[in-house]
């Protein structure tokens, strides 16, 4: 993908939950410095698990990377814990947003600066930067996060991650449960953060249309395996992707859908 060393390199990992449930069966992917990479796939494909393996949050879910390795900035991350990943510049925004409900928006943002060793002024500056991307949050800074809208919560969660001054944000299903207009607004901000602040993104999404519009590169995950990857534009043009993920299948094909589905799947997995 790029000549430089990638920011994150996931190398053929296998993940097992509770010692028995095999969920990822050899996933490899890369996020280049400055890239937006989409991790696509249906519900249950293993997107969240992949992100949590990278951010180390898996440890707290009785999940374990049993094979393969994950490098961040060229370093093996095997022995690291989540707060060490955050101090090194990698942070995850969890699916479902997970704001601290009984903390105000501003307090939520400030918790993101826990590992930020820059001192008071640096943290204030960072807060202003976050507010400049999310002016709506500044207006409602003292509202409890439990009472704000889903869109505001998603913005709060992204802003909170930004407070750690990350070089890579793992963003899990930012579009979930949000109106299309709002989704677009959030993706626009992601794009701006990428170009203006140089933050890289690994984006897990079921909303393939939207994700491929903003990402440079994409991986498609099925049943814990990467079945296809490529430049975003190439993927968006691919017939299989169009049919199964973008919902653009032709009318007459519909009746054969299941048959074709099966055949195509076979081809992908081969």
């Amino acid at each position, binding site marked *: 993908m790029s000549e430089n060393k990638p920011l994150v390199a996931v190398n053929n990992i296998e993940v097992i939950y509770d010692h028995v449930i095999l969920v990822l069966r050899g996933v490899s992917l890369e996020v280049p410095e400055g890239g937006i990479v989409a991790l696509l796939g249906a519900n249950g494909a293993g997107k969240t698990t992949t992100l949590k393996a990278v*951010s180390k*949050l898996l440890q*707290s*879910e*009785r999940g374990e990377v049993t094979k393969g390795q994950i490098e961040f900035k060229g370093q093996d991350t095997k022995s690291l*814990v*989540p*707060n060490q*990943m*955050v*101090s090194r510049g990698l*942070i*995850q*925004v*969890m699916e479902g947003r*997970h*704001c*601290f*409900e*009984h*903390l105000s928006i501003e*307090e*939520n943002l*400030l*918790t*993101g600066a*826990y*590992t930020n060793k820059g001192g008071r002024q640096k943290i204030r500056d960072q807060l202003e930067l976050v507010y400049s991307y999310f002016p709506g949050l500044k207006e409602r800074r003292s509202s*409890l996060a*439990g*009472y704000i809208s889903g869109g505001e919560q998603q913005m709060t969660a992204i802003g*909170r*991650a930004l*407070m*750690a001054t990350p070089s890579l944000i793992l963003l899990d299903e930012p579009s979930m449960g949000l109106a299309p207009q709002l989704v677009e607004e959030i993706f626009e901000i992601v794009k701006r953060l990428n170009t203006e602040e140089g933050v890289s993104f690994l984006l897990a999404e079921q909303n393939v249309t939207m994700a491929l519009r903003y990402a440079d590169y994409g991986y498609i995950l099925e049943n814990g395996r990467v079945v296809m990857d490529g430049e975003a534009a190439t993927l968006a043009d691919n017939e299989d992707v169009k049919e199964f993920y973008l919902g653009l299948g032709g009318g007459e094909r519909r009746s054969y859908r299941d048959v074709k589905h099966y055949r195509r799947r076979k081809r992908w997995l081969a």
Partner: protein
Amino acid sequence: MDVVFFFEVLISGMLSGVMYSLVALGFVLIYKASGVFNFAQGAMVLLAALTFVRFLEMGLPIWLALSLTLLVMVVLAVLIEKLVLSHLVNQPLIILFMATIGLNFFLEGLAQGVWDSQVHGLDLGIEDVPLAAVEEVTGMFISVFDVVAAVIAGSLVLVLSIVFHKTKVGRALRAVSDDHQAAMSVGIPLDRLWAIVWAIAGVVALVAGALWGQRLGVQFSLSIIALKALPVLILGGFNSILGAIVAGLLIGSGEKLAEVFLGPYVGGGIEAFFPYVLAMLILFIRPEGLFGDKIIERV
């Protein structure tokens, strides 16, 4: 009805309620940060008081005995985190609760094993006599000790509120109590915060233990005053510092008033169960307690 007498009962009830609040506070802190009901809080009160009184009996000056006991409680917190809690991360809360039951017996044993199981008098130099000035002006008997205890408890709560609401660690603690996983995801080190909160609970246990110790003598039964904190917790809300205080005052004054003014009609002994009745009524009306964090439900 004698108004002076009424107020005397009310005020001394409230002041003794502060003592319940102090014990409840220890529970609240740990519950807030980890969602765990720490069954061992009573044992921590006992251990702290016993350690303190034995250091005093060795002839150490009070400030040194106090500092050493604080140190013991902090070290204990770190050990509990490292040896017990860290191995139980992500286990269901009931498992953590069971672990604190085990811890309770362990600490009770430890306290009496290292020290002994005698009753020790503890003299903090605060007299349990009526405040002369108040008596002169109003005719009420209000104990000096109660007033001092209330002032100490009040200051402790003030300091804790400032820590929880104005500091980075306090904010992180509240974040942890809202959502462990999210706290972890933003880089808050749970292990360190748990050690911190157990240490704070240990300090609170020491204050409670010292004050109760002076009143009742330092002995095994200190471990059981934890039961007195239960209705306070239910009434105030398990995760509210303010709730622990207000509920302590309510229950303290409520039980004394009930005993004095209703007792004669029903044959007395109300004091013993009144708090539980009050707590149960509150459970019906407001399950999260008077000041507990509202359970935020989204549609």
